[in-house]
């Protein structure tokens, strides 16, 4: 649905996006993660044909960036970090304006559909300026969806919202997942990305890593089993001399053991520990968060900001 090949953008001597190679599949929620100033918004602006790349090529919804920009804009919806609504106009007038710009023939019914879907119908005639932040963001999301775009770019959709409003918007995004629609989610909210995204890209001017969150974590950290022991005696680490154990570490009364196939190897490890007289209390998998992965990768990325 989105393919970029060496996409680059300079602002004078500043490199905002460098040599971006990316493939985003149809129907997936793709998280584009990076710190402030990493070039996420610049990437979205290039893909949404708002600014031109300095180098590289891209296709968006099957159309070529540069030569088919207007067609691309008919197939994408953009939600910017700030809602960017016309505050003096009513919610309905805001949406009708954009529906007409998209050349929609059934603009009135489509506007009604989205106002009802996002529970804004009762206040449709109120000026958008009188809405709460959460309502404004919902209205902006409705605006981005009005023309039923194939690709939805969401740039920090919950960044300026309180936790409650952010939850509402996050739940809305979850409901937008369809086989036909691709969602490109720019965020530095890692918990949000972990919950919503099928795949993520970690980005800091350059692409640092891309893949499914779980796969990336496994690639980075491997899989670890934590064995909680009642009274761990000395020498257990050395006694566990299985060749499949990648590393073993003692933390308080726990053994953290890196394994390649825990489903097969855990029973062997536990049996050996019991044979050695250890009292096993619990066994669980050590789960790394996307935040751990992000911080470790970004720290070691060496990509310039």
């Amino acid at each position: 649905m989105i393919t970029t090949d060496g996409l680059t953008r300079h602002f004078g001597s500043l490199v905002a996006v460098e040599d971006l190679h990316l493939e985003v599949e149809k129907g997936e929620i793709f998280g584009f993660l990076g710190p402030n100033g990493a070039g996420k918004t610049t990437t979205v602006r290039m893909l949404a044909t708002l600014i031109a790349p300095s180098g590289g090529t891209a296709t968006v919804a099957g159309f070529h960036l540069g030569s088919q920009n207007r067609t691309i804009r008919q197939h994408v919806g953009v939600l910017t970090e700030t809602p960017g609504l016309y505050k003096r106009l009513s919610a309905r007038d805001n949406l009708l304006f954009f529906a007409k710009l998209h050349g929609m023939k059934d603009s009135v019914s489509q506007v009604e559909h989205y106002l009802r879907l996002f529970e804004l119908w009762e206040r449709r005639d109120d000026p958008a300026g009188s809405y709460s932040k959460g309502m404004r963001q919902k209205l902006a999301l409705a605006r981005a969806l009005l023309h039923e775009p194939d690709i939805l770019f969401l740039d920090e959709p919950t960044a300026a919202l309180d936790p409650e409003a952010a939850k509402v918007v996050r739940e809305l995004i979850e409901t937008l997942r369809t086989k036909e629609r691709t969602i490109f989610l720019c965020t530095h909210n890692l918990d949000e990305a972990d919950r919503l995204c099928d795949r993520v890209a970690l980005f800091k001017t350059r692409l640092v890593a891309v893949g499914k969150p779980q796969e990336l974590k496994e690639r980075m950290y491997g899989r670890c089993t934590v064995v909680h022991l009642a009274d761990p005696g000395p020498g257990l680490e050395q006694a566990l001399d299985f060749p499949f154990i990648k590393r073993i570490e003692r933390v308080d009364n726990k053994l953290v053991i890196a394994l390649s196939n825990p489903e097969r190897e855990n029973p062997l490890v536990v049996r050996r520990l019991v044979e050695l007289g250890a009292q096993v209390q619990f066994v669980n998998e050590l789960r790394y968060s996307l935040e751990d992965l992000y911080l470790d990768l970004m720290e070691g990325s060496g990509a310039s900001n």
Partner: protein
Amino acid sequence: MHRISIIVIKEWRESLRNKMILFGAIFLPLFMVGFAAYMVYQGRGLDDLPTQVVLFNTALMYFLLLPAIIPLAIAVYSIVGEKEQSSLEPLLATPISDLELFLGKALASVIPALVLNWASFGIFLAAASALLGGLPPHVLTPPWLAAIFGLSPLLALFSVGVTMLVSSRASDARAAYQFSSFAILPGIIPLIIYSSRKTLVSLFLVGVEGLVLVAASIIVLYFAIRVFSREQILTRWK
């Protein structure tokens, strides 16, 4: 053309909900009409026809200022308002072209300026006629009619071009107003010429000013359109 008209209507809807613009668009022409009518009223009963004509022609000058002043408020808000609301990016993400957006915003300012100016001119003529018991002869000469109906669109266009250029660089409406106000200068030129009494307003003078305005408008609009590219709007506008 369809998208241009959508932009024009949106701009008008917003302007109608903006008390500052609405007040300016209604109050200013009414004030000018009242002032011009009062001026010609001063000449009532005078047997001296030239004095009546001078008063009348001076009053007509206001209708060369109005088309440059009225669009200022609408055009300033049209750009600065979009900046303040951060609404340009979502707008540019629609299939609208940069030129359509520019023309929509320009026409949304020029059309009301012309309608209000010509309506004010009509009201003034009616008021003057009522106050004086008929219009004095030799006041509505072809040069004046050519100035009011021919120069007004050019004055409005020039004013809008300057305002859009200035507003693209201004971060608030006040600064934009201040710097845009020099756009009314071309409207003052006939007043200066006429006040100096060096020459009468003639078709030749109106034609020369018209040509100067066409050239100035082309230059200003050329730069305004260049500034109005989405690339510039999103990366350079403050």
